C-alpha cells in the first residue's frame, strides 16, 4: 500500500483492508466486521446447528427481530401464525445458544435491523457489514462497505466470518447544487433510479458524491444508500465527514476515548482521492430534482409530482412497452393522468428507508394542524425512535391529525407480519419497493418521501409538498 501513487476510491481502500486471501482466479476471501441478523435468519442458524458448526464471532454479530412481528403489540404470544411466531421467538433463543447479542421484542433498542445498526453505533465508517437482507446497502451512508446476502451466505458468515467475493466495479453518482425546499434523500434516490434504471447499478458498488449529497443529514444519506439495491447496486456508499462522526460519537457500540481518536484518524483517510478512477460516472443536477412519485411496479417508474403517467406507446423497446402496459393495468392508471389527480386510499410512513426521527419530524410538520382523510400509519423504525418522537410530542401531533401511531417494525413495507392492504387499494408509501403484491395481493404502491406521504394523507391525493410548506 505504502507509496502507491495511484489515487484510490473509498471502496478500494475498504476492500484492501479486508482481504484475508486473494485467490488467483479473482476471488477474494473478504473479512466481515459486522454481521446483522434478523428473524428471517432462522434457516441459517438451523443449518449451522445441523452441521454442528460453531458461530465463529458472536461478538461481531447482532440480531433484532423485525420482519415477522406485528406493530400493534409487543407480545410475541400475539403473533397468530405459528411459523412466524417461531421465527421471532427463536432469534433470542439462537442468540443465547450462540452468544450473539439480540435486541429482542420488548427491548427499547429493538427495531428494523437497518435502523438499529447505526443507532447502536454498530455501523461504523471503514468496516465491512453484511446482513441477510438486500437493504443492507443502507449502512454505506457511513462510508463502509455494506451489502445484502442470501441465506447460504449468512450461514457461511456465521461459520467463517468471511465471504468469497469478486471485486465489483465502481460507479460514482454525483449530485451537485442545492436541493430545493422539501426535497429529501428519497426524492434524490428515486430520481437517480429513474435515470439509471432498476438494473443500472448491477455489478457495481455505487458511491454518491457532490455537494447535494454532502448537504444531506445522516438520515437522508441512509435513505439514499438504502435504495441503492433498487437501482441494482449491491452497495452504496458516501464518504464519512463531520456529520458522520457526530452521528456515531457516543453511541453504545462506537469506540470511545483513545480508540475513538485512533478510529477517527483512520476514518478521515477513507474518502476517495482526487483523480481516482471509477468504471462509470453519472451526474444529476440537484436543483432539478422535484418531489418524486412512482407510478408503476418497478422503482425506476418514478416521475416528478407535477408530471404525468407516461404512455407505454412511447417506449421504443417491446419488452419495456409490454412491461409498462402491464404495470399501468395493475396500478389502475391511464397514460397522461397528472400525478396530482391520483387519489390514495391509505398512507404508510415507515420502513428501513424512511422511519428515522428526521422522517417522522418531516411527516409531523405536514400533519400538524391538519387532518388525515385516509387511514394513515406511522411506524417508527425502532423503540428508541418511538420514544424520542414521543418526547418531542410528535405522537400527539399525529394522533390529533387522525394518524395511527404504532410500534417499531417492518410492518406494511412487506406485510410479512400480516399488516397488508386490500386488493386495488392505493397506498402512498415511504418504503422502497412498489413490486406487484408487495404490500398485499393487488395492492397499488406508490413510493414517496415521508413529507409527500403525509401530504397525501391530509389531502387524499398526491400533492406537491412544497405547496404545504411555509
Amino acid at each position, binding site marked *: 500500500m505504502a507509496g502507491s501513487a495511484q489515487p484510490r476510491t473509498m471502496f478500494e481502500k475498504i476492500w484492501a483492508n479486508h482481504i484475508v486471501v486473494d485467490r488467483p482466479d479473482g476471488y477474494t476471501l473478504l473479512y466481515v466486521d459486522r454481521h446483522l441478523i434478523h428473524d428471517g435468519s432462522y434457516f441459517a442458524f438451523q443449518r449451522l446447528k445441523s452441521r454442528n458448526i460453531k458461530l465463529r464471532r458472536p461478538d461481531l454479530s447482532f440480531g433484532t427481530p423485525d420482519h415477522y412481528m406485528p406493530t400493534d403489540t409487543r407480545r410475541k404470544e400475539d403473533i397468530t401464525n405459528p411459523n*412466524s411466531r417461531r421465527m421471532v421467538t427463536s432469534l433470542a433463543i439462537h442468540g443465547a445458544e450462540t452468544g450473539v447479542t439480540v435486541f429482542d421484542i420488548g427491548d427499547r433498542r429493538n427495531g428494523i435491523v437497518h435502523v438499529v445498526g447505526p443507532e447502536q453505533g454498530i455501523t461504523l465508517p471503514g468496516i465491512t457489514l453484511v446482513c441477510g437482507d438486500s437493504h443492507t446497502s443502507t449502512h454505506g451512508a457511513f462510508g463502509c462497505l455494506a451489502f445484502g446476502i442470501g441465506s447460504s451466505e449468512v450461514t457461511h458468515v456465521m461459520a*467463517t466470518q468471511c465471504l468469497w467475493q469478486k471485486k465489483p466495479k465502481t460507479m460514482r453518482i454525483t449530485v451537485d447544487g442545492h436541493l430545493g425546499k422539501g426535497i429529501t434523500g428519497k426524492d434524490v434516490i428515486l430520481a437517480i433510479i429513474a435515470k439509471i434504471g432498476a438494473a443500472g447499478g448491477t455489478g457495481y458498488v455505487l458511491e454518491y458524491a457532490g455537494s447535494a449529497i454532502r448537504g444531506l443529514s445522516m438520515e437522508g444519506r441512509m435513505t439514499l444508500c438504502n435504495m441503492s439495491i433498487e437501482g441494482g447496486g*449491491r452497495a452504496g456508499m458516501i464518504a464519512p465527514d463531520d456529520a458522520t462522526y457526530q452521528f456515531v460519537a457516543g453511541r453504545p457500540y462506537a*469506540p470511545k476515548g483513545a480508540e475513538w481518536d485512533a478510529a477517527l484518524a483512520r476514518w478521515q483517510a477513507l474518502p476517495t482521492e482526487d483523480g481516482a478512477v471509477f468504471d462509470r460516472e453519472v451526474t444529476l443536477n440537484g436543483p432539478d430534482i422535484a418531489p418524486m412519485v412512482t407510478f408503476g411496479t418497478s422503482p425506476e417508474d418514478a416521475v416528478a409530482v407535477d408530471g404525468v403517467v407516461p404512455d407505454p406507446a412511447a417506449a421504443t423497446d417491446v*419488452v419495456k412497452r409490454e412491461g409498462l402496459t402491464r404495470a399501468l393495468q395493475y396500478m389502475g392508471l391511464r397514460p397522461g393522468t397528472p400525478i396530482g389527480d391520483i387519489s390514495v386510499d391509505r398512507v404508510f410512513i415507515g420502513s428501513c428507508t424512511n422511519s428515522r426521527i428526521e422522517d417522522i419530524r418531516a411527516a409531523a410538520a405536514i400533519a400538524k394542524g391538519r387532518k388525515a382523510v385516509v387511514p394513515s400509519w406511522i411506524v417508527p423504525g425502532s423503540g428508541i425512535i418511538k420514544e424520542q418522537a414521543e418526547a418531542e410530542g410528535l405522537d400527539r401531533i399525529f394522533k390529533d391529525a387522525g394518524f395511527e401511531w404504532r410500534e417499531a417494525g417492518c410492518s406494511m413495507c412487506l406485510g410479512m407480519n400480516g399488516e397488508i392492504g386490500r386488493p386495488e387499494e392505493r397506498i402512498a408509501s415511504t418504503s422502497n419497493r412498489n413490486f406487484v*403484491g408487495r404490500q398485499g395481493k393487488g395492492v397499488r404502491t406508490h413510493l414517496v418521501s415521508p413529507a409527500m406521504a403525509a401530504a397525501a394523507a391530509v389531502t387524499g391525493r398526491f400533492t406537491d409538498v412544497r405547496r404545504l410548506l411555509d
Partner: protein
Amino acid sequence: MQKFTTLKGVAAPLNMINVDTDMIIPKNYLKTIKRTGLGKHLFAEMRFDEQGREKPDFVLNKGPYRGATILVAGQNFGCGSSREHAPWALLDFGIRCVIAPSFADIFFNNTFKNGILPIALPEARVNELLRFLLELPGAEITIDLPAQTVTGPDGKVDTFEIDAFRKHCMINGLDEIGLTLEKAAAIATYESRIAKERSWV
C-alpha cells in the same frame, strides 16, 4: 448440493423484464420453516387466482411447460429481496437453469448455492429463444456446463461465461463452507493483525 453437469429439458418462456423475487415467491410463503415444498407456490400470484385456481394463460400452467426444467426470461431477473426462498422455490418446482440477458447480483449468487445454473446470454439471443419457445411449446434446450454451451431448439449453439470456481463447485456439488473452513489459519492471522491495527473493529 445437487451436482450440475448437463441438462436437457423443456424450457418455459417468461417474457418479462425485472422479474423480482416477490413475484418468484410471494411473501405469504416465507412463513414456512422448511426449505422444501415451495415449488407449489412458485410465481403464486401470477399462477393462481384468488380461489387458488390455475390461471390458464400463465406459462407454467400451459401443457408441456408444466414440466419445465429451464426458464428463459427478460433482463434483471431476480431483482429485489435477498430471500433465498426464490431459488428454493424454483428448485422445488424442478427448474435447474435460468437463462436471461442479466441477473440481479444477490439472486445470481443465491442460485449457485442451490445448484441452479443462471446463464446470461446476449439480449438478442434471449429474445430469439423466447420467440421460439412461444411458438413451439415443449421445445427443449440443452445445457452442457463442462463445455459451457447452450443448444437452442433451433440447433444453434451459444457459449456462456461462468467463472472457474463456481463451475467447479456446481459440477462437483461442493459447498463453500467446507472449503473456507480450510482457510481457518489465514482467517485467524487476519483477525490478530486487525485486533492490533484497528482494535475498535
